[in-house]
């Protein structure tokens, strides 16, 4: 879902960069030194996940893993994803430096939204509710990303509806796979370390 260089117009790039910068500053403010290693690990998960291709459907799609990033990091997923995307742009030429802001926003904002939508539900004692919320978290993070990508392309592609259906259809397998991955991660982490889901932002905030 990385948007390449030279597609978006300057106003879209600037708006995206400004919004991403706002998200990153919120994330950095909330970052506790205890949380830094976790941010780094999830950043590298995101960095590597883009290399895993899902060979279903007509287009080239890959894992994104922004659901888990959002669920475990909240606003901290903005800096986490920014670092990963920067390195992907430099080392793999995915996306690009000028579109970094837009791409960060498109991937990280859905993570934050899903954190607020499903974070509490994942914490529930009832196993079924918690796992269903975990699946939805992974699923909807990709779905929202798709919608944001289509919105960014609004001024370049002819029609929003066709862009959105194309992107969402291509990413349907990814959504399901990410839902399942998130589900297993949550089930596993709940068993070995349930505290990971509570108190993301440290004691200070």
């Amino acid at each position, binding site marked *: *879902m*990385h*948007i*390449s*260089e*030279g*597609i978006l117009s300057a106003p879209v790039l600037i708006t995206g960069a400004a919004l991403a910068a706002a998200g990153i500053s919120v994330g950095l403010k909330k*970052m506790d*030194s*205890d949380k*830094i*290693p*976790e*941010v*780094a*690990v*999830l*950043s*590298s*998960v995101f*960095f*590597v*996940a*883009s*290399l*895993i*291709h899902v*060979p279903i459907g*007509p*287009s*080239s*799609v*890959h894992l994104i893993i922004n659901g888990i990033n959002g669920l475990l990091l909240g606003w901290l997923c903005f800096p986490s994803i920014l*670092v*990963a995307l920067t*390195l*992907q742009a430099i*080392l*793999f*030429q*995915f*996306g690009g430096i000028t579109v970094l802001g837009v791409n960060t926003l498109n991937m990280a904002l859905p993570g934050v939204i899903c954190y607020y939508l499903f974070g509490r539900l994942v914490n529930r004692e009832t196993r079924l509710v918690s796992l269903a919320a975990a699946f939805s978290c992974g699923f909807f993070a990709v779905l929202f990303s798709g919608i944001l*990508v289509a919105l*960014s*392309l609004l001024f370049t592609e002819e029609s929003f509806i066709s*862009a959105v259906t*194309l*992107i969402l259809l*291509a990413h349907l397998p990814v959504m399901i796979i990410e839902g399942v991955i998130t589900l297993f*991660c949550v089930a*596993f*982490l709940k068993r*070995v*370390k349930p*505290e*990971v889901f509570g108190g993301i932002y440290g004691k200070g905030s």
Partner: protein
Amino acid sequence: MEKVRRIQISLLILFTASLFVISISIPALAHKVTIFAWVEGDTIFTESKFSGGKRAINAQILVFDRQGKQLLEGKTNDKGEFSFKIPKVADLRIVLNAGMGHRAEWTIPESEIREASGLLGNKRAGESSQPLAVGLSREEIGDLIEESLEKKLGPIVRMLAESQSKGPSVTEIVGGIGYIFGLMGVALYFKNRGKQRHREDRDD
């Protein structure tokens, strides 16, 4: 508490490591398209691929001249290829638009087009074709050389096209992860230094 945290971090590292192993073992395919174009005779061939080798099928191709005027438009076939007759002897900018925000460019300089097609034509027009001793005219020999060169160079051109769309290598992947952990170290250093200074201030 400290122990639990350590377990948590090592689990996350394990998860990353397993993803990493998967990503290396599956041919890496991901979000980047490349287009490669070359001239053969009077035709320009293009080949479009996603990073890692999946062909960009049914993708839009636009050809512009240096002034940005669109010369022609087409769609790649099911092998990701698209070829067209040279529309104009000038610098050609070939833009691939594979949808969903994927775009790539390739420029063919005017000289390359001239060399491949124009020069030959000029010579033919300029010099009278003297039959050589073997009974072959100048242009026939020229054509023969041209033909056999194209045949010989074909695989090399194709190899170049292949190398254009290679996915990320292991070094780059490992390097990227290294960068992230290096950044983590820097961030921790500054956070801890701030804390220490805070503590010292309190002690004074």
